[in-house]
């Protein structure tokens, strides 16, 4: 508080000077605008996410969740993938929700599958893809299938090799059993929002910096070759950190590329990007994020390439 109050006063006094300084530097104002774009766009979805995670804290105890989920791993992650597909959401909101659902054993794998499936395989995103690629329904099918497979594979991978001690971020324990439902809800939502929003700032700043330093044009010049195209588009998806409802329009405008690298862009983006990596670090811990995010990146890239070669082939 001793820092915050003077800080606000200084910011208010120097606002005019700051504004003029930013306006005078084109790159700085672009970075600022892109940062605000990513952050403001994510904010409502993050809000929705923490409301859901607050409700989970109140109503869904780990024991209850374990009762609901099928006992067998395969059935559990399949259930999670399907329920993710039914909920239109955004990747920023699904990270805190997945953290709340996360538990031992089967529930852990199911929560991670849900986290990957919810933003990528929902009706809103698939309709946006159909609009962006008119006359190419194979693209929509390929996106849905590849994203679903990625989510299922990552759930299975976690249940096979994942270790709970990578999850270093603990949720505050519900110590006060006589607390009202509202208090439990508000404390959970507040905690998750603060945690996620701090890391969202990091992710949005990284996306803004990349936007200014590495214009997408650079990538498109590299991408005539299939393997090179797939790799560059996968990396572009990570650094641009677009939301899953918009990325299809960007991909459809990259007309110099064949469809397969563009499909990779659509499958990798909602599963892993700089913003999601930052959010996962905040909600689960660094040891988890540094393992899970690269693994997701590899799986999503390979699955999207394979599905793309089968379904859209050499189309442009």
């Amino acid at each position: 508080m001793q820092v915050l109050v003077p800080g606000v006063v200084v910011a208010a006094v120097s606002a005019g000077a700051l504004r003029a300084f930013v306006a005078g530097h084109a790159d700085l104002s672009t970075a600022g605008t892109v940062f605000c774009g990513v952050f403001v766009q994510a904010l409502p979805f993050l809000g929705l996410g923490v409301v859901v995670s607050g409700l989970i804290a109140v109503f869904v105890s780990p024991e209850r969740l374990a009762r609901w989920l099928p006992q067998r791993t395969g059935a559990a992650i399949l259930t999670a993938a399907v329920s993710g597909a039914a909920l239109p959401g955004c990747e920023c909101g699904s990270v805190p929700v997945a953290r709340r659902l996360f538990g031992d054993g089967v529930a852990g794998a199911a929560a991670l599958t849900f986290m990957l499936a919810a933003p990528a395989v929902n009706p809103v995103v698939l309709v946006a893809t159909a609009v962006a690629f008119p006359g190419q329904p194979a693209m929509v099918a390929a996106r849905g299938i590849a994203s679903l497979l990625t989510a299922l594979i990552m759930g299975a991978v976690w249940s096979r090799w994942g270790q709970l001690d990578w999850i270093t971020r603990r949720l505050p324990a519900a110590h006060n059993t006589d607390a009202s439902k509202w208090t439990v809800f508000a404390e959970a939502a507040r905690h998750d929002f603060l945690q996620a929003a701090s890391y969202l700032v990091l992710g949005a700043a990284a996306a803004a910096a990349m936007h200014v330093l590495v214009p997408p044009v650079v990538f498109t010049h590299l991408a005539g070759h299939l393997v090179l195209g797939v790799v560059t588009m996968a990396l572009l998806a990570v650094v641009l950190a677009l939301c899953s409802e918009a990325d299809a329009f960007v991909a459809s405008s990259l007309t110099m590329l064949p469809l397969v690298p563009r499909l990779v862009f659509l499958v990798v983006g909602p599963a892993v990007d700089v913003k999601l990596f930052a959010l996962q670090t905040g909600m689960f811990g660094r040891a988890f994020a540094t393992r899970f995010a690269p693994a997701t990146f590899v799986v999503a890239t390979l699955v999207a390439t394979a599905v793309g070669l089968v379904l859209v082939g050499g189309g442009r």
Partner: protein
Amino acid sequence: MSRETENALLLLLGLATAIITISGVYTRYVKPSLLPWLAAVAVLLIVLALSAIVRDLRRGRDDKTGSDEHTGHAHRRGIGWLIAVPVLLLAFVVPPALGAQAAAPIAITLSPNELRQPFPSLPAGRAPEVSLKEVMKRVALDSAGTLNSRLITIVGFTLKADSGTDLARITIFCCAADAQLGRLHLRGPAAAAAAELPDNTWIRVEGTIAPPGDAASPVIPTMTVSTLTPVDAPANTYAY
């Protein structure tokens, strides 16, 4: 950082969100359709912050024993201060809307005939106003030739290109991070007047879109301009 500081930052972020929502500044960063969601999240953040502050005050008055339950690791780290960054940007710096140099320029690919669909005809009238995005869509996808030798009106800003002056408009799909720059080359009798205007001058032009032929590579359509009038910049410079 202390729990009080966290609550204060949460409150400030909620207020900053409310300010950009009410003042309309948010349209520099995201689509106007996000308005109800932004309003809702601003209320949510303010309510969460105020209720935490009230709870702490009550508990502080009742007893001091409850304080250790909130000294978890999350509150000892300084990362929470990062929330001050968007507060500073949104409430005080307020970065401007994207300029032409910041958006990814796009050319359009002409679809082969079998993928084209007939578009509905343009509104009646001498020169109906059509958005630049709609023009590009019709050039790329329309099989009914609705733009052929039809006089239309388009609003956009000037942008110097290698071969003359272009009419440009920035389109965003979701937020400023996915901005794209749509362009038309201006030619014809009134194009010379456009060349004399500095970049980023908002103009309204009347003219016809030249048939793009059947180029295989992406093209930027050309407009034959008959009249050109400078206009005021719109409050919201993006198209959607």
